[in-house]
């Protein structure tokens, strides 16, 4: 029995049942969850156990698929995050307008993604890619936001431009090597100029999906207007498809030596193309973070945070060294975990309160304790504070950048991760701590399925914090398949730590130390508390002799980082979004002009015919 066929069958059954039972909530959701979890279990079980199973699959010498570490890494991410998002949607989408078709298109998206990740030829990759884009576009339309279509359309059109940039490159390659297979790529038939063009057009396709600046203009709208549980998947798993695509096209198909052929810089030990990618990543990490700091809407903040985090991943890809790629893959997982958790938390808060702005919320810690814990763990990971998993990413990434002597870029990236502290802090300060709004006194805790869906990634993050080496063992397999200077600068894994040529990171000891300190201090605190109970309420403050009530706003959360905003005001008005809007307006004006060629006057048409006659006669008779 072929593994791939089985997985395809299981997922297709899930898709079909989402169509068949589209009106029966329990049956539909259960069958989708069953299908996803069976497929997930299947992938995990058969990965690396059986050797006798036929692992490749091809159809009519046109479509090739393969079941290996390369793909399974991302498939596990897709199915895992998808499962959590569907679980969270059970309550989130309940009784909402787009509920029935939400699941159908969600499953379609997952099908497309799994297909593209397993594919080993450009044609089926492209088919999966388009199905994914179409499916996600349709999912966005199922939300209840008024302006959803505007943003969904923007997302789809920009994605389409990216996809066609990819398609164009595919045909250029096919025209030369006469095969769509990734492994058939042969750099010797291309000139230097053609290779450069190819690299650029291919990257544009993927950078758009990963929302790297300056191709990020769709991201904040599409992320924030989707049904939020889907956004968890969108940001947690789907944006990584851009990263996966870059991986497989740049390093799996075209190859490092061909990239070096387009122009190699001795100082940075990398090609100019990759150097550009690194800088794009750095700029995205920096500006994305800045935008996130300045956002007043929780969803938009998380969207820009995703943009920034994808920037980190691109840096690793651009570096193209084992360290860099390991950092990227590690970050793919950690970002997948914490963004899923955060978006589900935000979905739960918006679901319960109906508010989307920071300053409209606050003090929800007593109402939603589980959500608070999930958020806390997530933002510790996001900010890269040891002992949780985010630190390992940063550690690997900075070392990888320093290894390539990109010191200035490293400094900016570090600045960006400080920015990540700033915006991540708002999630705790403005949502859970501070003063609770009067109307939120009776807010119920997050629905059960959402609590499960936000806690599982949190547990994953804690686990990853203690045992990052387990994941790195896995990413090593992945990188081995691509075979980039693996043995030269590999990341070695021991039982409790991982080592590279610069040092080692023993997360287990440090994590254990933190846990011990935490336990000791908790015990100490509780002993102290027993000694003297003295509670201070939120209103026990006497400012200027005035008596404060619940109505008095006590903590400030509106325009939280206003001082940063004020200092950057002149720069902010120049944004890529405005530029693109301007271009599209100009284009529509052009279309209005072109439309007027058809004047509606028969005499004009007769004149056109005469002019055409003259042109044709001149062309053919000369």
């Amino acid at each position, binding site marked *: 029995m072929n593994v791939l066929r089985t997985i395809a069958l299981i997922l297709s059954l899930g898709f079909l049942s989402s169509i068949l039972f589209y009106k029966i909530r329990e049956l539909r959701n259960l069958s989708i969850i069953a299908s996803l979890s069976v497929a997930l279990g299947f992938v995990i079980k058969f990965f690396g156990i059986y050797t006798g199973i036929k692992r490749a699959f091809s*159809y*009519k010498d046109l479509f090739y698929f393969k079941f290996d570490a390369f793909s399974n890494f991302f498939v596990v991410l897709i199915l895992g995050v998808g499962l959590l998002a569907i679980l969270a949607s059970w309550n989130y989408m309940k009784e909402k*307008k787009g509920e029935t078709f939400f699941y159908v298109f969600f499953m379609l998206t997952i099908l497309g993604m799994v297909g593209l990740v397993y594919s080993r030829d450009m*044609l089926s990759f*492209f*088919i999966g890619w*388009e*199905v994914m884009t*179409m499916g996600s576009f349709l999912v966005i*339309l199922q939300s209840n936001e008024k302006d959803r*279509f505007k943003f969904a*359309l923007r997302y*789809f*059109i920009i994605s*389409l*431009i990216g996809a*066609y940039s990819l*398609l*164009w490159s595919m*045909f*250029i390659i*096919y*025209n030369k090597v006469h095969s769509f297979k990734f492994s058939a790529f042969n750099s010797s038939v291309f000139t230097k100029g053609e290779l450069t063009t190819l690299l650029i057009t291919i990257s544009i396709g993927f950078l758009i999906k990963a929302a790297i600046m300056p191709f990020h203009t769709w991201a904040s709208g599409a992320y924030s207007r989707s049904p939020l549980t889907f956004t968890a998947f969108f940001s947690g798993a789907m944006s990584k498809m851009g990263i996966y695509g870059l991986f497989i096209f740049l390093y799996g198909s075209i190859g490092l030596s061909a990239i070096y052929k387009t122009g190699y810089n001795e100082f940075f030990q990398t090609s100019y193309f990759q150097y550009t990618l690194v800088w794009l990543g750095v700029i995205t990490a920096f500006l994305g973070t800045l935008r996130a700091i300045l956002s007043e809407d929780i969803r938009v903040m998380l969207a820009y945070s995703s943009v920034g985090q994808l920037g980190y991943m691109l840096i690793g890809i651009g570096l193209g060294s084992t360290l860099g790629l390991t950092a990227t893959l590690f970050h793919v997982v950690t970002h997948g975990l914490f963004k899923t958790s955060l978006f589900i938390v935000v979905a739960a808060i918006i679901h319960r309160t109906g508010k989307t702005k920071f300053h409209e919320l606050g003090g929800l810690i007593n109402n939603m304790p589980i959500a608070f814990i999930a958020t806390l763990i997530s933002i510790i990971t996001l900010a890269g504070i040891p002992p949780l998993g985010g630190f390992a990413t940063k550690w690997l990434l900075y070392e990888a950048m320093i290894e390539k002597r990109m010191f200035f870029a490293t400094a900016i990236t570090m600045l960006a991760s400080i920015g990540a502290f700033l915006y991540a802090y708002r999630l705790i300060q403005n949502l859970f701590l501070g003063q609770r709004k009067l109307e939120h006194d009776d807010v119920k805790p997050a629905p059960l399925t959402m609590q499960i869906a936000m806690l599982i990634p949190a547990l994953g993050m804690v686990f990853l914090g203690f045992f990052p080496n387990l994941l790195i063992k896995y990413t090593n397999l992945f990188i081995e398949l691509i075979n980039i200077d693996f043995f030269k600068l590999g990341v070695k894994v021991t039982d409790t730590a991982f080592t590279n040529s610069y040092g080692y990171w023993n997360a287990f000891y440090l994590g254990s130390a933190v846990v011990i300190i935490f336990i000791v201090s908790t015990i100490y605190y509780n002993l102290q508390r027993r000694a003297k109970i003295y509670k201070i309420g939120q209103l026990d403050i006497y400012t200027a002799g005035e008596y404060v009530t619940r109505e008095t706003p006590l903590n400030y959360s509106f325009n939280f980082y206003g001082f940063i905003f004020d200092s950057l005001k002149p720069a902010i008005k120049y944004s890529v979004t405005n530029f693109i809007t301007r271009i599209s307006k100009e284009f*529509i004006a*052009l*279309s*209005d002009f*072109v*439309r007027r*060629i*058809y*004047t*509606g006057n*028969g005499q*004009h*048409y*007769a004149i*056109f*015919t005469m*002019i*055409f*006659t003259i042109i*044709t*006669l001149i*062309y*053919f*008779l000369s």
Partner: protein
Amino acid sequence: MVDYAILLIALPLFAAFLIPLVAMVNKNWPKYIPILVTAFNSVLSINLLLYLNAHNGTPFIVKIGGFIPPFGINLFIGYLAIILLMLISFVGLMISLYTINTVKDAESRYYMLFILLLMGVTGLVITGDLFNMFVFLEITSISAYSLTAYKRDGLSLEASMKYILIGSLASVFVLIGIGVIYYSTHTLNIADISNHINTVPKYIKMFSLSMLLIGLAIEAELFPVNGWVPDVYQASPTPVTTIFSSIVVKATIYVFFRVLFTVFRADLTVMNFVMGLGVITLLIGEISALKQVNIKRMLAYSSIGQVGLIVIAISSYSSMGVAGGIYQMINHAIFKGILFLGTAYMITSVSGTGKISDLKGIAQKMPISSFIVSFSIIALLGVPPLTGFWAKMMILSSVMSSGHQIIVALILFATVVEAVYYLKFIAVIYDSSEITNSFKSTIKFNKIVPIVLFALTIILFSVVPQFLVKFQDVLLKAANELTNVSSYISIVLGS
């Protein structure tokens, strides 16, 4: 023998002239005659397909009146002709079904003109004689002029007037071209002309080529001589518009390339010129559609754009490209069938003048038609794995392999533009706000059925890959029939 193939033309002609007599007996009967005729033609073309399959797919000729080809008129039937015949009769059947109760106060002459139009188009795709082709072109055009003016309001009369003006120019050009060629080769049989075309002085050949190219470009809706198209499409009754977009223009494109490929044995300079025309037509059509507010006009511009795409594909001259062009012809006929009929069905249910904004939120009231229309739009945009994607793949790969990378980029660009206005249209019909327009709830079975059948065809072409692979062979054979001149001559004239 397959001499009965002549019935494809003869029966509709007979039926068309029978209609006034039938109308005298009963006023309601004429509207069923188009259904019978198109159904008969469908069966006949399937029969011919089976015959062709049984004979290794070698095209055959039908000698009319028993005269041997250079002296008499012959029909040339291969896979290409049969694909087009099936398209004509299938789409014709769907439209005839739709037409019942659609055209207000439809008189018998409406159905008569309708059948004559179909007959003219059928003749165009199977005839092997150049002058006969002109005759069929005239039959098609004249019935098209009259059908355009059928509503007899200001808009349709004006459109028809423009159509006659430009159409008669086309006839003149075609006639001059044919005259010149007849003068220098003394024959009208396409195969025979092709045999002697190299003996004709180059100037005369190029002059008559230019004349025919201009005349047929007008009929095939190529820029800059397609000014009549938006007006005519907008003003005609919808079933007629659908026929124009789905069938008539396909047949004229076929004629256009049959004349260029077979009669003139066109070389690369001619084909590059035609490809340039195709690219401009595609871009202008799609860009003009972007800001349209009237649905039919938007679809008309989109139609122009698609014609450009088909012409680019066929003028790439490679067998894959021509096959892709033929595939796109089929796809486009089906998609535009759904779009024109589906939107017209929606428009009749609301009050308004056929603006896109009139259909705001219509999906809440008409979920099935809205879904099918959106589905066909998605298929038209070439979202894999639907059928539009495969056609586009064939076209792009062949254009790319003929070395026109920029043209591939332009085609993709045009598709993006197409996506913008079509998705905006979907946005309007799926708008979830309250419907302000008054809505007449009328579920008409005969209008839903054609749309659903069209949608099933899309699914059939899309999801049955086994079928697709066989289908690709057929397409390649059909492409070969169009491009391979020597086999055409040997089949018609004997070796």
